[in-house]
């Protein structure tokens, strides 16, 4: 298969996954247990994505400038900064940490 084939195949799978969620029967959606599970899964996935984005490098765990971004973002959130400010603070913190020699 060509590179374009793999790219478009992966896109089709991603879209099908999204669409399946909308076509699932309503009885599944409307139970309080399901709603709670769904909210919980979102929290779990976001926590997992924070972890991989901050500490994972392939299959290794590393401590690098992204840790500075994580700490700075948490401080900004505690100070009730809006989302965009939090993101910019994260980028600046990582860039500054690299400037002073963090990997």
């Amino acid at each position, binding site marked *: 298969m060509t*590179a374009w084939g*793999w*790219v*478009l*195949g*992966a*896109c089709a*799978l*991603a879209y099908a*996954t*999204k*669409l*399946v969620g*909308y*076509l*699932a029967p309503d009885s599944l*959606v409307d139970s*309080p*247990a399901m709603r*709670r*599970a*769904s909210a*919980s*899964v*979102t*929290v*779990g*996935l*976001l*926590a*997992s*994505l*924070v*972890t*991989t*984005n901050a500490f*994972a490098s*392939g*299959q*290794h*765990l590393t401590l690098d*400038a*992204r840790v*500075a*971004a994580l700490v*700075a*973002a948490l401080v900004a*959130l505690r100070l009730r900064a*809006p*989302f*965009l400010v*939090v*993101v910019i603070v*994260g*980028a*600046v*913190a*990582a*860039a*500054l940490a690299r400037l002073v020699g963090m990997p």
Partner: protein
Amino acid sequence: MGLSVGLATGLYGLSFGALAVAAGLTVGQTVALSALMFTGGSQFAFVGVLGGGGTPGAAVAAASLLGLRNGVYGVALDGMLHPPGRLKPLYAHLTIDESTATASAQEDPDEQRRGFWTAGVAVWVSWTLFTALGAVAGGALDPRRCGLDGAAVAAFVGLLWPRLHNRDAWATAVLCAVVTALLVPAVPPGVPIIVAAFVAFGLATWQHRRDA
């Protein structure tokens, strides 16, 4: 909130564009991923596996596993926003972390729908546009020196933070973060995130039974 989410994610698209071209994709393929796959985590997994020397099949597998959460989002959003059948294909395409988080952050049904569309469309436009810019700029831009990977970390923390409104949510987040960190060295990229989803599902089921 929708607009700022769009802006922030769009800026991160710069680094995705640059990284994808560095991993060997053409500018066209890179932009196609952002416009059509349109789910950042999966896209980063896709080019990350390719860039790390993985096979295209492994890249597709990692991207698809990471995209499973969008199916869960679809179930939640279908129940929350009740889109008409003919619009479901469009809702499905715009279903991502940011649009789901923005909609869930609202209480009023109209605001939920507005949040979903604003975030979804704003992210799609800026994500695709900035991906193209990043892909064209290619090697000229150093995503690490600009701290763009730090921006991604901050964005995910920013999306998680408003959901940590009680002890159960905190417990879920901490447990899933620990499970992820333990699994990263042991299994291929993308898999720890899926396992974390199942852990969260199991924990929620237990919490629900405990409260019943």
